[in-house]
């Protein structure tokens, strides 16, 4: 199976500060990659590199088989069409309503008829449980609602890849759990390939070790079997270098002092 995302020996520095150094990994379709690490370890930078918002100093990045690190801004738009990103704090457009935010890509950047776009917006807002907030402005939403709207916006155009940048940071445990469940639903019910950047271990392990199952009209979350749990891989970054790569069980058993300190 061809990888959805592949990074080979990627490095990046801002002036004298090394952000990423020789980072390599690949992510298969439908799988999840959880990137852990402290603040400033280069986690969010990886997502920006995959989206082409930043260019690496060295190495290569492939998304759906296309090399994005050498693409022009115009050419990269085609690759971005299959990627959705949930930014830190949501990055919702302040001047647009929830409906306009969620449907932005459909209304502005696609030829989808308006009625169909409206239907899709309702559908994705229903998916994140915020149908009744359609006409609100982002400033009227709570932190958790903003993240869920951001998830709805990212998934509205049915991308094959979703990138979550600290989607649960700063949220209370119950709201964070709702966001985690949305991520699991998208992965297991819609077949989306995900990269989750976080330093919230509880959320990371929950997403990696649970799966969503549709039962009649509602969705249930159960403990994932061994094969499913193996599809979620962890990467630990320390000062821009990958210091661990493996599944949840291997991460829990790791003996590296930094990882032990991070897990404790």
């Amino acid at each position, binding site marked *: 199976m061809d990888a959805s995302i592949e990074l080979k020996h990627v490095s990046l520095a801002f002036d004298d500060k090394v952000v990423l150094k020789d980072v390599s990994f690949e992510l298969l379709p439908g799988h999840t990659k959880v990137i852990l690490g402290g603040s400033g370890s280069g986690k969010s930078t990886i997502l*920006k590199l995959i*989206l082409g*918002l930043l260019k690496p100093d060295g190495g290569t990045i492939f998304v759906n088989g296309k090399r994005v690190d050498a693409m022009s*801004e*115009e050419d990269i*738009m085609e690759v*971005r*069409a299959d*990627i*959705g*990103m949930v*930014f*830190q*704090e949501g*990055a*919702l*457009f*302040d001047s647009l309503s929830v409906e306009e935010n969620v449907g*932005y*890509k459909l209304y*502005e*950047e696609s030829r989808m008829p308006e009625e169909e776009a409206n239907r899709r917006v309702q559908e994705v807002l229903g998916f994140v449980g915020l149908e009744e907030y359609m006409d609100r402005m982002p400033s009227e939403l709570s932190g958790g609602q903003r993240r869920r709207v951001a998830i709805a*916006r990212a998934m509205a155009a049915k991308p094959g890849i979703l990138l979550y940048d600290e989607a649960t940071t700063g949220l209370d445990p119950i709201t964070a759990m709702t966001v985690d469940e949305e991520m699991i639903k998208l992965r297991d019910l819609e077949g989306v390939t995900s990269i989750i950047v976080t330093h919230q271990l509880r959320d990371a392990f929950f997403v990696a070790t649970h799966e969503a199952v549709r039962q009649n009209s509602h969705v249930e979350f159960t403990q994932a079997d061994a094969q499913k749990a193996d599809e979620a891989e962890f990467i630990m970054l320390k000062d821009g270098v990958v210091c661990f790569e493996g599944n949840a069980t291997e991460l829990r058993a790791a003996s590296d002092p930094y990882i032990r300190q991070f897990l404790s």
Partner: protein
Amino acid sequence: MRPSGSGGVPASAALPLLDKGPPCRRRGALHLPARRSERDPCHDADRLLVFDLLERWLKNGILEVQEYVRLQVATIRGATSPPFYYRDIIQQLDAIGVGSLTVVLLTGFFTGAVLALQSGITLDQFGARPFVGRLVSASMLKELGPVLTGLMLAGRIGSGIAAEIGSMVVTDQINALRALGTDPVRKLVVPRVVAGFVMAPILTIIADTVGIIGGWMIAVFQLRVASSIYWNSVIDGLYPNDAWMGILKPFCLGYVIVTIGCHVGLRTHGGTQGVGRATTQAVVAASVAVIAVDFFVTRLLITLLY
């Protein structure tokens, strides 16, 4: 003994750049070098620091110019090739044009009025009070209308654009736009530039008109000049070349104000503090640019028209 800094803060803490070198000034104050031929390492360090600062300042300046030129190229490309965001263009025409109407009306009116008031006194010395209309119309049309409208737009539009785009940058909304497949230059910059380019001349014509009306009110009610004499004088003072100058200049000023606002906004960094800094920079740069561009365009138009 030298003071260590205000409020008990050591000078080295207030000026971290000076930490790089030895405490040259203190040594220099205590004993001057005996001979010129003796090399003073502190003097060399000071020189290096000055060169370092100069180099950094020059590099930053060149980088700003480079990025501004790149934005111009991207804007022209965005304005001449699809996709076009028509709804945003209409929104900006409204925000920049209709939104600035009040401030332009007030500025134009009072400028024309004060011009008549001041020139009335001077003209009286030559017994030329009836010519007040000619002076008001020529001044408003050629210079005061375009420049004052430009300055008002720099304050209102330049700051607004820099603050809005700057906030979008620091809250990742610009990156979100790019991630959703939108070119921020086409979506944000082009509509604003088109609106500024189109609306600045219209607002200038309005400012000119109300300025002349303001002058008329002062001429009639204060200077006791007959209304017909004032309007005849106004028409006598209007030459086609002056009108061309008054119309062409605002196109350049509108374009410059908006592109500076967009450029400064897109280069914002440093959170909400950075947004505040960007807003101030945009107003200052756009205001200075209005005066400077006015001079150069006037010089060019004098060569071409007269």
